[in-house]
């Protein structure tokens, strides 16, 4: 795959004269393409490449991190030292991002995050070369907490896996949620069976459930929760209800409210084009991960149009302007290089045979993040 793409890019470089000197860049994408969780990485990659279709100024090298921090670190070293990339991107998981990003930005590389946004990189650990094009990890959970208030939930049971993004999730929910907690559980990362947790939810007397269980973890939980006969409203971030996962959860997810910065039914021009192009190119509906990959590539292309990669100061300020048409509508960077954007509340519905989401409310308007003030940049 990697060879194919670089060969393609190479032939393109030979065939077409450069647009303008220095306005070219080599991007290293490290993402999860095999094993559990590969659906997320594949969507980010496909969205990213879709946006760059026909763009001859950006060469992309893609490698698979297998969701393992040690492999991600090796790949990053290889990309920086032997591939000589200018920009790194692609990492899905916060624990992998924490292993790769600080070292990469300290070596003078630009890192554009299409997904992970751990709090450690938004606050005191922020860096002028690190841009998050997705969200700070807490954002979607904060919107879920706000939504719980508006629905009048007073006694939530909350649950997330025991890893950096899981802790950010529960912190984010509690930051906005005003009611009591019926229980708070950290589960094992990668856990698939939630019988023990569901029994505790049943016994806790909660009036609602908030959970953050990305990928296959959420599929297991939703199916088992629906089986358990517990009739409580469920709120979660979009990660357990994205397009790739919903079909595997099936009817168990119907009616669940989830929060997202993007949705297929947003009507801005960029998004209408993105959804149509993505379906035409890949024959499936895009997920929020695909939209993040697409936005990341468009941000990069917009910055390269106005500044060369060799002039890092100019390039950084070009990135910071965020002068591109985001699929989410309004998008800008706060001082810590994390997005300011609206977070929506969506409901799972069925369109024909396909389970998907529709927006029912705006959870948070122009939300930045809680760590801006801790960032000294």
């Amino acid at each position, binding site marked *: 795959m990697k060879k194919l793409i670089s060969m393609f890019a190479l032939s393109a470089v030979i065939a077409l004269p450069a647009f303008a000197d220095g306005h070219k860049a080599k991007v290293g994408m490290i993402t999860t*393409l*095999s*094993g*559990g969780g*590969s*659906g997320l990485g*594949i969507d980010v990659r496909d969205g990213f490449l879709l946006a760059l279709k026909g763009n001859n100024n950006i060469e992309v090298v893609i490698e698979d991190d297998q969701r393992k921090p040690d492999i991600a670190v090796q790949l990053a070293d290889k990309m920086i030292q032997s591939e000589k990339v200018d920009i790194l991107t692609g990492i899905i998981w916060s624990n992998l991002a924490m292993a790769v990003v600080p070292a990469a930005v300290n070596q003078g590389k630009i890192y554009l995050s299409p997904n992970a946004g751990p709090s450690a990189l938004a606050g005191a650990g922020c860096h002028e070369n690190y841009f998050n094009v997705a969200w700070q990890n807490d954002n979607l959970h904060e919107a879920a907490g706000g939504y719980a208030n508006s629905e009048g939930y007073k006694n939530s049971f909350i649950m997330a896996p*025991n890893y950096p993004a899981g802790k950010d999730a529960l912190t984010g929910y509690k930051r906005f949620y005003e009611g009591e907690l019926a229980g*708070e*559980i*950290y*589960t*094992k990362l*990668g856990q*698939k*069976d939630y*019988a*023990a*947790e569901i*029994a*505790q939810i*049943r*016994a806790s007397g909660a009036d609602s459930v908030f959970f953050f269980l990305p990928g*296959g*973890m959420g*599929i*297991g939980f939703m*199916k*088992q929760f629906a*089986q*358990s*006969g517990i009739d409580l409203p469920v709120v979660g971030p979009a990660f357990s209800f994205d397009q*790739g*996962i919903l*079909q*595997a*959860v*099936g*009817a*168990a997810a119907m009616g669940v409210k989830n929060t997202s910065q993007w949705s297929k039914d947003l009507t801005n021009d960029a998004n209408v084009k993105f959804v149509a192009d993505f379906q035409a190119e890949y024959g499936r509906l895009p997920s929020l991960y695909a939209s993040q990959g697409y936005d990341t590539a468009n941000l990069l292309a917009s910055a390269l149009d106005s500044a060369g990669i060799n002039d890092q100061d100019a390039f950084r300020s070009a990135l910071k302007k965020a002068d591109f048409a985001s699929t989410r509508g309004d998008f800008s960077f706060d001082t810590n290089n994390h997005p300011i954007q609206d977070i929506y509340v969506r409901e799972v519905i069925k369109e024909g045979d396909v389970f998907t989401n529709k927006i029912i409310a705006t959870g948070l308007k122009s939300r930045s993040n809680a760590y801006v003030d801790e960032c000294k940049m």
Partner: protein
Amino acid sequence: MSISLFLEQVLNGLQFGVMLFLMSAGLTLVFGVMGLINLAHGSLYMIGAFSAAAIASWTGSFWLGLVASLMAAAIAGVIVEIVIIRRLYKRDHLDQVLATFALILLFSEAMRWIFGAFPLFLDVPDILSGTLSLPLGIEYSKYRMMIIVVGILIAIGLFALISRTRLGVRIRAGESDREMIAALGVDISKLYTLVFALGAALAGLAGAMVGAIQSVEVGMGEPVLILAFVVIVIGGIGSIKGALIGAILVGLTDTLGRFLLPSFFKIFLSPSSATDIGSALASMMIYILMAAVLIWKPSGLFGNSAK
């Protein structure tokens, strides 16, 4: 904490243990009889789940999916045994680990190539959805109850097979002295293929049954494989009885640990640090159990210490 919550958790632990038993029975037989470390056992679990999901969505019947999982995993087992594994019996364990690890990669990529990278849908049949009302006000999932019953029936069947049938005699003989039973005229390579296929079919069944309540996706077998190895080390390698006791011990320890430890730490710590420490310790519990058993009985609970 009420008694019914505790009992429900015990049932959950039992269900988890029974599922682990289906996985580890094949693993321990293959190791005990053929002396082979088969890392690809988790792939057979995945094959079972994928074929069940494919057949169930094609025919609309969960039960046909279960049958398909048994058959697909057994067929895959036979092919793998004849084509690759057969060449590994005389090699040392490092060669076996390398070759069967390669099989994991091959099977995972093959599944991704055939079914795509996104998880498949497999749901429990309507007749088993919902809950069963047990005494003491326990509401327990019918489907999980079925897993417990099926697992116990298979355990009884395996014991009968090993201790009461001619095939069982040969398996036990193969375990103690390979050359001798070959000299007595038993077709040892056919016996090996059969044992391997039996283990594969059980793993496939476990994958299909669990796939219906969890997720059917590439890479689903490896976490279970690690637990299955813990089980057979605790139970004693090669012992079916050890695998059963070990699996139930691991299932109960893990489930009750996850449930009791955080509440235990809440007695003397603040809720947030109790949750932190409790869940961290809970995920270590089964390995602590394994270490404790190995200190006490270095060859496992029912292991043959002469080996």
